[in-house]
């Protein structure tokens, strides 16, 4: 039923989602913390930029990424002038696209969780001799645990499910940038409904299980919650 390209696509998809989630958590945690603490007046502009992928058609985002990262784009051109290669149509390009595309799904739950902690526990920790970095890891992170679980699961699942951005920036090269969601599309195009069923059903089950995890760890979780609780 499932051929070796499907298996490869599955592995590429999981690798892409795993790597992207890791990078998203590393970038998103300090960003979300900063957003939850700052009184900077222009913070709403930054919040709007981060939230853009929520409303932007994925192909639009993918198009701009292709222009920017391609050999003639500013970033791609810069990479080439330093002796590197353009990252368009590579796995790295997919990761960059995924990180930008899934950013709001990681930053928003984390920002909500950090805001929900309030100032008091951090002040208590300060009076108990914890340095700023120490109290971030010993108080803010454990108290925001459910936020981290939500962010990781949503970031992962959203990356697994993306189609438009990946198609634009990755170019659907089998064994390199072909991911599961595009493979399903290809199977349907070729009228291979059996294989499409297997892959689609698998993704459905995976998505359901991951959401279950979120709801188990975070009973008050809602996908529609606003960024200001």
């Amino acid at each position: 039923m499932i051929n070796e390209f499907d298996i490869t696509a599955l592995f590429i998809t999981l690798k892409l989602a795993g790597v992207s989630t890791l990078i998203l958590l590393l970038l998103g945690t300090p960003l979300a913390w900063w957003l939850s603490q700052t009184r900077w007046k222009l913070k709403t502009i930054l919040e709007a930029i981060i939230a853009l992928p929520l409303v932007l058609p994925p192909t639009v985002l993918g198009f701009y990424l292709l222009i920017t990262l391609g050999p003639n784009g500013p970033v791609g051109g810069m990479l080439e002038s330093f002796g590197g290669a353009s990252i368009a149509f590579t796995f790295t390009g997919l990761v960059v696209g995924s990180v930008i595309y899934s950013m709001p799904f990681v930053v928003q739950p984390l920002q909500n969780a950090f805001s929900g902690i309030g100032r008091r526990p951090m002040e208590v920790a300060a009076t108990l001799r914890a340095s700023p970095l120490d109290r971030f890891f010993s108080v803010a992170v454990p108290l925001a645990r459910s936020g981290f679980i939500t962010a990781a699961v949503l970031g992962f699942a959203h990356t697994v499910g993306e189609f438009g951005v990946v198609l634009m920036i990755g170019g659907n090269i089998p064994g390199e940038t072909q991911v599961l969601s595009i493979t399903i599309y290809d199977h349907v195009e070729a009228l291979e409904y059996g294989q499409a069923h297997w892959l689609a059903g698998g993704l459905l089950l995976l998505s359901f299980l991951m959401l279950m995890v979120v709801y188990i760890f975070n009973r008050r979780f809602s996908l529609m919650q606003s960024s200001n609780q």
Partner: protein
Amino acid sequence: MIECQLKIKQGSFTLDVDFCTPANGVTVVFGSSGCGKTTLLRALAGLEKSDDGFLKVGDSIWQDGKNFVPPHMRSVGYVFQEASLFNHLNVRGNLEYGARRATEAGKDFMGRALDLLDISQLLERTTEQLSGGERQRVAIARALAVNPDILLMDEPLSALDLKRKKEILPYLDSLHDELDIPLIYVTHSPDEASRLGDHLVLLEEGSVVASGAIDEMLTSFDLPISHGGDATSLIEAKVVGHDDRFNLMYLDFSGGQFTVTDRELPLESKVRLRVSARDVSLTQDLQTDTSILNIFSAIVDEIVPEGQSKVMVRLKIKDVTMLSCITRKSAELLELNPGKQVYAQIKSVALLS
């Protein structure tokens, strides 16, 4: 000595204080809500930043001009109004959080904090399994377990109901008696102030109105606390004898001896008595045919009007100061004047610790 000169602007409110208080005993920071008590306490801990000023606690300088020591580098114990325990840790985890980080804390301080607040049996509970009173006791022990140079408490009783307050107060009394570090206690309750305080800092609209020893402050007529229904005097005394037949005990103070209901306190133990100005009446001659047991010879020190019909009289019983609130008519009939000798009859006294 604690020296404090701080200036903090928060919107339209400015805290601008300059005072000293001894580095021992309990200093009560007293004032109505919104006068800046909490801001002052937070500034002492470094949680509010003063752009300029000077703050010295014992031998450590925590602020000198622009040099600001951040909160985690200050040897403070801070008890917030709400217990503010860490919900991701159990009671033991909460206590060890600070104790493990404070270099000056040894294992024995943890043990002492557990004993003082009587929470050894709560160690393995989660924070949700504690009552309001227990939460606040754990919070106090957590602050003490770091072996701080100074303990700061921000109205630790105000979030509790009367029953819980009564549960905590004995522990605060024992802190007062057994701690050898200064305690700064913020409150708007005259009751807590007179029960726990040794020194008083009076705060009004962000400025220190007066500061000094509490017994002098309570009876100083230029301060609002010496007027109105709450006017009281404090007397330090010690237990000198028990009367088993009438279930009474005798308390010596520098002006004489009180007879009060026996509380079965050991001999020589120190107690603080509070006498409300309304419970002190005056007579020209020593009354013998009266039910009142506590009668002392006193000299009138000063008389000030108290509303339309009353006067507040400050008396000296040897070196002890006491307030008496009587009607203006009685004062006139007794021909009270500064220097006149009278007898103070004390209807009731409250034993504070």
